[in-house]
């Protein structure tokens, strides 16, 4: 068991849940509210120095009773140890968690992918958009267990939606704001840009 677990319990007390070992790695569960402080402590404390974020992902179990877990794999390059931190979220509840982008810049795209695939929102992320699917993807979040393998729509409908070329699907709003053609954009789109909204596919179900 990684020694960091004892140090975590000593520092954060009840915010640290259970800790276990699986296949040689240490996993520690952390409460959602304490996540930012725990992560900052893990990165900055001299005996911990988890300066390298290996991965952020999420796991949803087939058993509907089990919570959704957001998994952070941290590594200390100097001490050559790994630690896996997990946060449990209620799948029927509010899927929001704090972002760790301010601690490790590598979390930027990793959190965007978790948002895209699972629908988990990261508070404080500078640019939380879909990254693998297109921005106006209407079928949902693919890696959830209630999302069928072949998607929710029929194949013809998927082809139709894919071929529908709307500017909002190809350029993000901040990109459109740069373009010299800003003056020629339709008025309602300019208004949406000003409000910071994302566009929709016309007549989607």
């Amino acid at each position, binding site marked *: 068991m990684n020694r960091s677990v004892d140090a975590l319990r000593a520092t954060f007390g009840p915010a640290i849940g259970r800790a276990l070992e*699986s*296949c*040689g*790695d240490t*996993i520690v569960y952390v409460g959602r509210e304490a996540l930012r402080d725990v992560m900052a402590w893990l990165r900055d404390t001299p005996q911990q120095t988890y*300066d*390298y*974020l*290996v*991965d952020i*992902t999420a*796991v949803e*179990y*087939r*058993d509907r009773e089990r919570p959704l877990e957001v998994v952070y*794999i941290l590594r200390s*390059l100097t001490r*050559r140890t*790994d630690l*896996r931190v997990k946060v449990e979220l209620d799948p029927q509840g*509010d899927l*929001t968690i704090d*972002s760790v982008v301010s601690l*490790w*810049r*590598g979390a*930027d*795209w*990793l959190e965007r*992918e978790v948002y895209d695939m699972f629908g988990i*929102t990261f*508070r*404080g*992320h*500078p*640019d*939380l*958009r*879909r*990254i*693998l*699917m*297109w921005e106006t993807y209407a079928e949902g979040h*693919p*890696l959830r267990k209630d999302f069928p*393998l072949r998607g929710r729509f029929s194949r013809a409908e998927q082809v139709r939606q894919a071929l529908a070329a709307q500017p909002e699907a190809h*350029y*993000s*709003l*901040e*990109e*459109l*704001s*740069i*373009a*010299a053609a*800003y003056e020629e954009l339709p008025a309602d789109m300019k208004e949406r*840009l*000003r409000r*910071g909204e994302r566009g929709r596919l016309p007549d989607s179900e």
Partner: protein
Amino acid sequence: MSKRTVELELATPGVDARGEPLRVPLGVAEHPDLAAEHMLINIGPQHPATHGVLRLVVELDGETVVRVIPHLGYLHSGFEKLGEYRHYNQIIPLTDRTDYLSPMANNVGFALAAERLMGIAITPRCTVLRVIACEMSRIISHMVWLGTTSIDLGAFTPFLWAFQERERIYNLQEMWTGARLTTSVTRVGGLMADVPGDFVAGLRHFTQTFPKTLSEIDRVLTRNAVWVGRTQGVGVLTAAEATNHSLSGPMLRASGVAYDVRKDKPYLDYETYDFDVVVGEHGDVYDRYLVRLEECSQSNRILQQALDRLPDGPINIADPRVILPPKSRAMNDMEAMIYHFKQVMEGVKAPVGEAYVGIENPKGELGTYLVSDGTAKPVRWRIRPPSFINLSVLPKMAVGHLLSDLIAINASVDIVMGEVDR
């Protein structure tokens, strides 16, 4: 030539009161004159220089890059979702297609994770053969990188030399597995097949003649004024930035961080091989080129050692619940037939638990995170994609450089879109 860097506030408040992500569009509201000056250029997704279907939206001030916004997902194939519907051995062919430039290394990475999950220890011959597979993959991946980067920077001939070396490795891969590219060489607990008789001699001949091609490429490029001029000082990344952005592989080492998974978290007995880890100093494109070139020589060295120590013995473990019995026994012996039936129809069940194994892929640290709930199909198969994470630092590296430097920087990241998008 002066490079101007225009700093714009990119931060947004995050999420608003309703929980919707809030984004404040930039540029026009605050700096109307800037918007009139800058151009928005779209590179890709179909473009010969983007190394796959990557789309870069570039904001240009003349020829100088002010901002780069990469768009991914044009090759998103739903691998991780597919993995949840496949048995562990059925996932191995999927791993070929993520990083298709170094398929054997991906196979090995996944097999190691599945074996860690199931608590299986592989045989000595299998260990050495997997090291051979990994290092062959490293050579072919770096050869593609070298060839395509040379083309991007204007040198066509090294592409042909590099691809000729790849063809020789492809011959060996085909000899071993039957396929040039989609090898699926490992199985959980062993390999798909043992190497045939000519393989060792063929690989040894390759290791003897490969350094000559490397030195040819070195002579053409390393002290070439055009190459040096286009790559030195371009796309510089410090060690602290590289660590904070979670880079791995040659990208991390070229910036001066001496981290190589083979040395720091060894697997497959890598600690017993004699090789050097190549670490750069400046973190620019030139250093990444030198790191990768030298890594090919080191891989050659490892291959020679592996061939010398290749032991005899079985390649698969002796557990009949995990390894398919030979067909002759499965057709004649009742017990073997039952084992065969159970493995094919139900798959090999992994115990409840989870495992993460990272290996040193040519692109970086390829991690496989498997979560099992006791059934034969994983609950979650996560690929920790080195190219995806390495690519995320592109916007930072490219700011202030010229558009042609952006192409060089993009090439130096060594991405393969199959892995970036999965």
